């Protein structure tokens, strides 16, 4: 249902210039997000998750270059837009939730002021109307005493409450795409669970798709419909959430799943992936995972593997997919 896609990204390549040298961080990533769907992007720190979202939103610093065949949001091509037009799209059609809501909230303004400003600016609502919508969305995300919250400043709220307020703020603008970058990482597990359940409920009510970034496989299992696994700037595997957790194919995905100490499993033995994820300055020929891969052979060191379909909706990039360790 191509008509139902809210986001379509083709061949996204992003590089940074540091000390007059170009370092590529994303090596051609493609994916799409459909309406009422949560796509999780999972990978270790530095693999390019956040750069990916910032590339889509056009929020990268000056020294970054974004190249993409196409980035379409709700049918509109974003690659051709000027920064001013991009600004408008960002406010109207994309909502963002970050790990630390304080980075997005103005500490000097009350919650009410910040919520209504956005509504007035982007949706052209009047003062009373904006206040009514703000109250309604706060209630919708389960914030207690919404009237009082509107009068409070961000620092007066706990981390969990701030994250709820952030979500309400984003929701009130009725975006087509919700981008959540590690939104629950700074929260305690009990509060994380509350926020994840909230996001899951909202997904059905909203007319939007969700792009959810996380490093935590437990969170992925809980919230994703589909998953892409990113390693060192490359999409190594993509599939439905059951495909990824029950039939992982790529050696990296398999290794990652084996490294998580799971509270539900018995007799887990600590099984790390040897080595560390590469940093951007390291040039790696062939498969980017080969220095850490137990299945690596000569071809892996020479030739980058292409994505291969394994089942409908499930694909992985590896020369030796059929070899089970």
């Amino acid at each position, binding site marked *: 249902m191509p008509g139902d896609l809210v986001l379509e990204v083709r061949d996204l390549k992003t590089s940074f210039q540091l000390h007059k040298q170009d370092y590529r961080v994303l090596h051609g990533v493609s994916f799409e997000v459909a309406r009422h769907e949560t796509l999780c992007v999972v990978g*270790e*720190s530095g693999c390019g998750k956040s750069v990916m979202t910032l590339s889509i939103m056009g929020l990268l610093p000056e020294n970054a270059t974004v190249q993409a065949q196409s980035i379409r949001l709700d049918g509109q091509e974003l690659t051709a837009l000027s920064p001013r037009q991009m600004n408008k799209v960002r406010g109207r059609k994309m909502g963002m939730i970050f790990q630390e809501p304080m980075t997005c909230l103005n500490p000097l303004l009350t919650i009410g002021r910040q919520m209504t400003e956005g509504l007035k600016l982007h949706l052209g609502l009047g003062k009373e109307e904006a206040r009514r919508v703000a109250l309604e969305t706060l209630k919708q995300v389960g914030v207690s005493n919404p009237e009082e919250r509107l009068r409070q400043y961000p620092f007066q709220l*706990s981390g*969990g*409450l701030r994250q709820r307020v952030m979500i309400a703020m984003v929701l009130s603008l009725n975006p087509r795409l919700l981008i959540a970058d590690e939104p629950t990482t700074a929260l*305690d*597990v*009990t*509060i*994380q*669970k*509350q926020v*994840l*359940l909230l996001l*899951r*409920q909202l997904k059905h009510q909203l007319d939007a798709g969700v792009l959810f970034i996380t*490093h*935590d*496989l*437990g*969170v*992925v*299992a*809980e919230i994703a419909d589909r998953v892409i696994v990113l390693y060192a700037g490359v999409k190594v595997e993509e599939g439905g*959430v*059951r495909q990824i*957790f*029950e039939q992982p194919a790529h050696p990296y995905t398999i*290794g*990652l*799943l084996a*490294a*998580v*100490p*799971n*509270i*539900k499993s018995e007799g*887990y033995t*600590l*099984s*790390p*992936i*040897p080595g*560390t*994820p590469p*940093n951007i300055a390291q040039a790696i020929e062939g498969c980017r995972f080969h220095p850490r891969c137990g299945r690596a052979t000569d071809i892996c060191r020479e030739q980058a593997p292409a994505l291969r379909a394994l089942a409908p909706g499930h694909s992985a990039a590896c020369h030796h997919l059929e070899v089970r360790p």
Partner: protein
Amino acid sequence: MSLAPLMTLNKLKKRFPLGGGRSIKAVEDISLTVFQGEKLGVVGESGCGKSTLGRVILQLYRQTSGACVYYGKSLQEARPRYFAREVRKLPRYQRRADKAYQRSLQVEDQARAARAHMEEFSAQASHRETRAYNRWSRRADRQAFRALELRKQASRQLREGSRTVGSLILSKDLDQVQQLYTQALHQLTQAHQARRQLLRLGRLAPAYLPDSEKDMPEHRAAAELAQRRMNQAMDSARAALAQAEGMKHQNLLMLTERCGDPAYWQKLDNNQESGINLGKLSGRELRDVRRDLQMIFQDPAASLDPRQTVGRAIEEPFRIHTKLDKAARKARAVELLEIVGMKEEHHGYYPHQLSGGQKQRVGIARAIALHPRFVVLDESLSALDVSVQAQVLLLLNDLQAQFGLTYFFITHNLGVVKHFCDRVMVMYLGHICELAPAKPLFDRPLHPYTRSLLASVPVPQVPEFETDEAPLMGEVPSAVSPPGGCVFHPRCPDMIPICQAQRPPMVEAAPGHSVCCHLYTKDSLEEVAHEPGPAL
């Protein structure tokens, strides 16, 4: 894991004053024994006091009250000056206890007198009479309360004294007790000096001296002499202590009405500490003990100085605590790098040239440099990626097996705790909720908080069905004015009436499995039975 205690915490409390008589109650009444060689996991939501507890144990913060006793060093190994201080204070404890008790008797008399006055008036008569009645009644209550306080004060003084000499604090011949202890201490100091000499000669810590030097004849003679001196001093110290021990339970001063009760003597004897009460050490004495107690922090980058090479960072503890020369220090640093799975070349690296996992390895190398006994890890792996986290856990496992380390493993990651720790302590708002070996804790959690916490942990398995309700609603209340009764009651799904009024006691629900919840005490089990609906 042996069952020898390495550290006991006794009613440990830490408050951070805020001014205006208010304070953050970060750690409330923690009593716990940490055993030698165990990996104790400490979990709970942020702000539950985990980190504060770890820091109080290491005396990075001083406790507000309670004791933290370390058994890894014997008195003669630690410089026993604090012990000498306590011995000098013994008469003062006794005197103060006596004074508080005598005063409490007087106040009690006054209270009785006030009550007698009160009864002269009647509460139902004229307005004036009622006022007089109320006045005397208030005074009587106040004085009764004050007497009680004084009684407690007396007990407290005796308890403090008993930490050093047990029930001998009740002795009429406290002078003689004091003398014997001073004598023993003098001998212990001698032994300590001889021991230090042995250390210098490389006889006790072979790692610090090259073998060739240890076998030189003049060294051998000096070492033998020191050894003899040490043994003699220890023998006389033991004799003096034994003589004091013989005076126990004889010739008692009847300071309070409990003083004749053998159960009370027993209690005081139990208070006697064979370990080192860390809270009573002075800064310098603490430095000596601190070699044994190390901490590994959460952020590997923040704990390293960016201008210092890895080698220098690892050698720092040797510069501070040992007299090793440069070459020996470097040799030890390289050895340590290898132990933590790094290479000699890393010796010259700067922190920014290392990955997060490597920085954490350097932090670990530094912490184990002086062969500590007890290591506090505060969220030490939380900043690492899962693939690397497992590598560091394996390293910690190896080191534990190799050096018999004891870990106090603070984390919010319950998955790691389940697979890494032997025992788990669950904390909420400064209190222990549950303490049990890892397997029963995860298989059969008892405390309602533990259950909801476990149910909240995301698992890397696609759930069979979607739930709509979070296992635990609301957020952790403020530690400035925590809820009364059971601190968990406002969020507890299993609350029963008694929970609001009374703090639950810690009970051992199964061998080694303790839980602090009314659902598991006898009284409340009966109350539950009388409840109309099922509470469990």
